[in-house]
């Protein structure tokens, strides 16, 4: 019943094909508008018929995004979007599934599902809008809020230490881990494209601004005039260089990364670490995931991308193996399994 006939040569879709009729209702100036726009923009590039694309979200401002995508969409309950996506991908591995979430949804109430969907390598792309605040409930501290953050629920400052989402994703064995910024539209498009093409659990942290409850959370290093000096754009195979004048870099000093200036103290480009997003071991990615302003420039781009069989690949493989060994299941035989006797 679930065989779906897809047109052999789907007509080339455009951004407009992915815009749903529902009126968008985020606060004016919210970073979510940009995330929606870039998502709609890259969607045609995958060449996937829109009926085969599903957006699943949890609760929070980010949770509304599926309503605005003219694809299949499911606005679920708080923190549980990865669980629906896991079941859907098991049932229908051929679908392209996106999970839209936020810092509270993914890391607080949904923390367990975040961990387990990543370790299972469920083939979906999770886009986490990180604004370091609870927006839809009007401004309480979130798992990524700074220590000491004063909010309505923490008038004397938060006593909880924040988590580093990228470190968590790596520890949870995600096979694609990246970061981008709501206002860096081109970078976000590239990142979404790369994540969408990756087979397996992809995680993108989008540094997103909530201009109502936490305005300027990332401004210190994302603003146009400072971002080149305060952010590190990762490119596979390239040395870790940043700065307006491309004269700063990251060198490994013992077990620690350090910021150095090329040309000073005899430092050359050859001394810098070279990014390898396909490294099987996670050490470089883990190190990058810990680097943050003001001690370090904030890395953006793909920290890690490795190939592993997906969750549904493995499940389907076992089914194929079982059938290859014993033939397809016979219900009549299953009903009569074990010892039987006949009453005349």
């Amino acid at each position: 019943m679930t065989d779906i006939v897809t047109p052999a040569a789907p007509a080339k879709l455009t951004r407009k094909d992915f815009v749903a009729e529902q009126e968008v209702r985020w606060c004016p100036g919210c970073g979510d508008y940009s995330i929606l726009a870039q998502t709609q923009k890259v969607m045609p590039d995958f060449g996937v018929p829109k009926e085969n694309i599903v957006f699943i979200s949890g609760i929070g401002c980010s949770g509304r995004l599926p309503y605005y995508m003219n694809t299949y969409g499911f606005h679920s309950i708080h923190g549980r979007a990865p669980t629906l996506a896991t079941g859907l991908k098991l049932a229908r591995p051929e679908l392209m599934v996106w999970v839209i979430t936020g810092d509270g949804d993914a890391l607080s109430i949904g923390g367990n599902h975040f961990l387990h969907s990543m370790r299972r390598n469920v083939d979906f792309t999770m886009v986490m809008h990180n604004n370091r605040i609870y927006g839809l409930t009007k401004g309480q501290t979130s798992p990524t809020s700074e220590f000491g953050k004063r909010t309505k629920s923490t008038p004397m400052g938060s006593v909880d230490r924040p988590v580093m989402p990228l470190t968590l994703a790596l520890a949870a064995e995600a096979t694609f881990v990246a970061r981008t910024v709501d206002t860096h539209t081109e970078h976000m498009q590239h990142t979404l494209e790369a994540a969408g093409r990756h087979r397996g659990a992809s995680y993108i942290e989008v540094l997103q601004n909530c201009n109502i409850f936490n305005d300027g959370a990332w401004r210190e290093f994302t603003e146009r005039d400072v971002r080149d000096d305060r952010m590190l754009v990762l490119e596979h195979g390239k040395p870790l260089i940043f700065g307006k004048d491309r004269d700063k870099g990251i060198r490994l000093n013992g077990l620690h990364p350090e910021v150095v200036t090329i040309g000073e103290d005899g430092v050359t480009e050859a001394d810098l670490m070279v990014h390898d997003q396909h490294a099987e071991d996670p050490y470089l990615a883990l190190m990058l995931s810990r680097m943050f302003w003001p001690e370090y420039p904030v890395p953006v781009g793909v920290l890690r991308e490795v190939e592993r069989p997906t969750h549904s690949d493995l499940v389907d493989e076992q089914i194929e193996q079982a059938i290859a060994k014993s033939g397809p299941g016979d219900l009549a035989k299953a009903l009569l399994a074990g010892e039987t006797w006949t009453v005349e």
Partner: protein
Amino acid sequence: MTTTAQGPERESLELDRVTIRFAGDSGDGMQLTGTQFTRTAAVFGNDISTFPDYPAEIRAPAGSLPGVSGFQISFSASDIHTPGDAPDVLVAMNPAALKTNVVDLPPGGALIVNSDAFTPSNLSKAAYTANPLTDGTLKQYKLFQVPISTLNARALEGLEMTSKQVDLTKNFFALGLMFWLYERSMEPTLKWIDQKFGSRPVIAEANRRALQAGYSYGDTTEMFHETYRVPKARLAPGTYRNITGNEATALGFLAAAHAAQRPLFYGSYPITPASDILHQLSAYKTFGVKTFQAEDEIAAIGATIGAAYGGSLALTGTSGPGVALKTEAMGLAVMTELPIVIVNVQRAGPSTGLPTKVEQADLFQAIFGRNGEAPMPVVAPATPAECFTFAVEASRLALKYMTPVMYLSDAFVGNGAEPWRVPAVGELPDISVPNAVKGEGTFLPYGRDPETLSRPWAVPGTPGLEHRIGGLEKLHGLGTVSYDADNHHRMTVLRRDKVAGIARDIPDLEVFGPGQGELLILGWGSTYGAIRSAVERLQAEGKSVAQAHLRYLFPFPENTGDVLRRYRTVLVPELNLGQLWFVIRGTYLVDAVSYGKVRGKPFRISEIVDEANRLLAERS
């Protein structure tokens, strides 16, 4: 009179029904012993009913009172409905097993004990100050002291095994002895040993020898003066197998997927006493069944909703505490009107409660346990074999009405076993429903079938039906988000009416006994057997007593109110403190009488008979 080759002359008596309880340490293999006896009796053609009763601890300290595990089997030449109120024979493998079980043995009952286990240390662990085998306290029973450990060890001499390994086979000595006493063939168990231990020849040989040694001991000793025959039962013609409720549940859903022509998905988190369903469905890979052991109960139902959204027949299974965790997601399934089945193998609560013991106290939770107006059909199988039928029925209702359905089993019906007439695949009802496809005009994800009020199942991948669903209230028809007050009222009423309408699509409540009269005993779920037996007994005494047993708890069958009003008194026995009773009174304004019990054990027939007689006397 029969004579055997080696043994002394003794009599073979014919009995209609025998109830045996095997009791020992939880490491003594009592569940296995009971299961083997059950299979043998079932294959022979007796009607059977079993009650495994095991502790929550996997291995409580050996010899201790909390570590006692029991298995009761009743086998009979006639139709039986319960594993028996009291055992005729108690096999006690140690003092703790004796102490916790002998209270249930009626005077004159046979008591077979492993006398080797009555050491000072074991006696002290069981809090015996004197040895009950010698102090005369057991004189009201027919006591048979058998040095099982010693005899068994002697039979296994020469095998390369540790003394601990040897000791682990003594349950088969006891089993062999019982096979001899009840004139049973050892063949099914010998065959089982070959299959189970084929790759471990020494263990296989040890179990064979233990079994045979027990059998031969019975034959040669002069301790027993009689053996017993329980002839075949007169069951309806057909092919039978022995089945537990949990096995029948798993098999029923496998069959339901076939009947629905959809792939089967089962999302679950391990929990007693429901885990066996996960184990069994996980073994059905050749059927394409996809099982998912989730990180928690919530993920299990979340994935189930996801799979249902994708077009599978999707279920999640758990016990009461797990249902508590799934509550919010059940509401989501109600709101998004997706077909899933939630299996609750109930156990004694609240909270962790008595995890391995039976209770029926999740009825309120099933009917009411969600925020908002969130109606959900509830069905409950009454016997292990009925678990199969109701797995198919729960699936039918879910698919036809696009709704989550609660399937309430319990530890007694789930773990208990009985003979099951195996249906032919062709007997299964067609429960298939089509996926929505693109038609003329605007697609209405919340448009409704005029008869069932169910909405279309538009699965992702269907061109032209792209739409959004979710937990927010939806606009009637179009399904877009709507905060409109009148629309919310309309949608709430529609969801209510959809589920209420199921009453027209289910069988009437049947009555066993007089169509009107003094007393109706109304039950639901696993109390069926005890109530049926009690009603049969009361009717045989000439009392005006009838039984009605609800399999549909929400909505109730359409004639339920009419049935209740035809009796002067309605008695509602339940393994809770009056949940069905409360709902019945609230729904029908019938002044029913509650009879609740929450002792982690099923009703005895006699308890219901006594309560019925008390009521009949009081109200006459």
